[in-house]
C-alpha cells in the first residue's frame, strides 16, 4: 500500500510543470529611467540611489524577499496591506530553501549624467537572473530592496528571521501586490508615490509592512 502511494506521489511529482514568472522592476515599459522605488530623494535633495554611486562606479546589493501573507490576498493599497499584516503575523520574509535569500551585488560602471543609459545598464545587468527556482506555494508579496550593505550581511537566515536592513544604507525598495506565484506569469514591483520625495516610503517598505 505504501509502495503504491509512493509510486503515485512520484508519478505526480515527476509531472510537476515548470512555471516561469518574470519579475519586472517598476512600471516603465520603455526602461529609460530608474524604477519608482529607486528614484526617491533624501531630504537633502540627493537621490537615495546616489549612495551607491562612487564616481562612475555603481555598487548596490539587490535583495528579493517573499513576504508571508498568511494565506490571504488583501488589496494592493498600502493601508490594506498594512492592516492585513498587523493582523496576520507581520508578513515576515519566508525562509527560502537553503536559507539564503536572493541577493546580488550589482557593480556597474555608468555615466552619472545620463540616467537613461544608467537605467538600461541596471536592467541589462539583471536580465535573466534567476531569483528562485521554486517559489513558495502560498500567498506572498514580493519585495525588492536595494542597499549598500554587502550581501553577506543580509542574506543568511538567522534561525528565526533574516537580518533587517540598516535604514541609512537602504537606497531603494519596491513591492508587488499580494499574489500566488503559481497562478501568475508576470509580476511587477513598484512603490506608491506621486513624486520623488519618497524616502520614508522606501524605508517603510524595506522595514516591512
Amino acid at each position, binding site marked *: 500500500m505504501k509502495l503504491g502511494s509512493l509510486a503515485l506521489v512520484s508519478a505526480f511529482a515527476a509531472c510537476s510543470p515548470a512555471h516561469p*514568472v518574470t519579475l519586472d522592476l517598476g512600471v516603465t515599459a520603455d526602461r529609460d529611467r530608474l524604477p519608482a522605488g529607486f528614484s526617491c530623494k533624501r531630504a537633502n535633495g540627493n537621490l537615495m540611489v546616489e549612495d551607491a554611486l562612487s564616481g562612475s562606479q555603481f555598487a548596490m546589493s539587490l535583495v528579493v524577499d517573499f513576504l508571508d501573507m498568511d494565506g490571504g490576498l488583501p488589496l494592493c493599497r498600502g493601508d490594506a496591506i498594512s492592516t492585513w499584516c498587523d493582523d496576520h503575523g507581520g508578513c515576515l520574509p519566508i525562509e527560502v530553501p537553503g536559507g539564503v535569500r536572493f541577493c546580488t551585488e550589482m557593480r556597474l560602471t555608468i555615466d552619472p549624467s545620463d540616467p537613461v543609459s544608467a537605467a538600461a545598464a541596471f536592467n541589462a545587468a539583471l536580465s535573466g537572473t534567476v531569483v528562485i527556482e521554486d517559489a513558495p506555494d502560498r500567498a506572498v508579496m*514580493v519585495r525588492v530592496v536595494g542597499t549598500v550593505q554587502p550581501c553577506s550581511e543580509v542574506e543568511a537566515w538567522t534561525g528565526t528571521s533574516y537580518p533587517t536592513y540598516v535604514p541609512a544604507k537602504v537606497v531603494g525598495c519596491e513591492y508587488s501586490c499580494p499574489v500566488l506565484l503559481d497562478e501568475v506569469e508576470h509580476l511587477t514591483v513598484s512603490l506608491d508615490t506621486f513624486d520623488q520625495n519618497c524616502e520614508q516610503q522606501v524605508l517603510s517598505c524595506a522595514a516591512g509592512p
Partner: protein
Amino acid sequence: MRSSSLLLAIAACGTTATRTAPLTAVVLGAHAGDVRAALSRPIEGVAFAVVTLPESLGAAPITDEHGDEIARARRAYINADFPSCRALLDPIDTLALLDGHREIAARVLVWRVACRVGEGDKTGARRDAMSIAVAGLALPADIASVTPDVELLIGDVTAKLAANAPVPLRVTARPAGARVSVDGRDDSCVTPCTVRLAPGAHALTIAADGFTPMARRILTPDDRELAIELVEAAPPIIAAQLQLRVARGAPVDDPSTLALAARAVRARQLIVLGVAGTHLVGALYADGQVGARGERVFGRGGVSRATAEVTRELLGTGGIVPATPLWRRPRFWISVVVASAITAGITGYLVFRPDPQSKVVFP
C-alpha cells in the same frame, strides 16, 4: 458454520424460480422472426408460448371482384345489347361494394347508367347516376368509353344533388368511441357524432377495437339517427385489429394495444414485444394492468440480445421471477469499477496534484 450458512443464503438469493406453465408472448411488427427465435429458449427459467398472429387482415385485399361482369357488360354495350348489359350489372349490390371497393362500385354504376341511357331508360339511368353522386364517387376511366350524354347526365345529377342541403345523421354506439365510416371513406367521425350526408342511400360501417365491425344502410333524409350496439369480436378479428393498430403506429406498450393483445390470445398474463425503429419495446400485461415496461436499443447483440434483456427486465420488474440482484448484474460491477477509478483519480489528483515549480526571473 455461520459462514457456510451465509454462503448458502447468498447462493439462494442468486437462484431464479422456475415457472411450470409457459408464459404467453405476443410478437408484433418487424423482426418478429428474430424475437420469436430468442423466446424459443427459456429466459430466467420461464418458457414462452409464442403466439403468431396472422398477417394484417385490416387492409382490404386487392380484388378483381366483378371484373368479369364489367368486361362482359362493356362488350354488350358496344354491341348495343343493352338488356344483356343490365342483366349482368343489375344484380350487383353497389352499396355493399362501397366499403373497400369504391372504384369497382363506380365502374359498375357508370356502365349501368350507360346501358340504361342506350336502352332509353332515363329514369333508371338518373337513379344510378344519383347513386354515384350520393356516394361522392370519382368517375372511373371507363367514362371515356361511353357516349358523352352519359357523362353529361351524371354531371347534371351531381350538380342538382349538390344544390340540396346535406342531411344530418346522429350516430351513437355502445361502447362509445367507435369509428364511423360513410360510403367506404376513411373514418368520418367517432361516436357519438353527427355526419352530414347527401340525401339518398348510404352505407355506414361502425368499428371499434375489440368489437365486430357493423355495417348499416341508411336512407337520408328518412333516417335521422342510427344507434348501434357493438358486440365483442372473436379472437381472430381482434388479432387482425391488433395488427392493423400496430401497423398504423400505435405503441406496442400502449395499454389499449396490450388489452387487445390479451383478448386476441385469450390470456390473462402475457408479454408483448415489438420493434419500433431501432428499439425493441416490450410490456408485461396481467389481469388488465400493465405490470412492467422495457425498452432497448439494438446493440451489438442485435434483436436477439435486446429481446432477452427486455424480457428479463419484464419478468423481474413484473414479479414473474425474482428481480436479478444488483450484484449479479455485470453493469453494476462495471459501474462500480468505473466510479471507483474516477473517484480514485480525482482523490489522487487532489491529494497529490503536481505543484507547479514557479521560477522567478528578471526579464
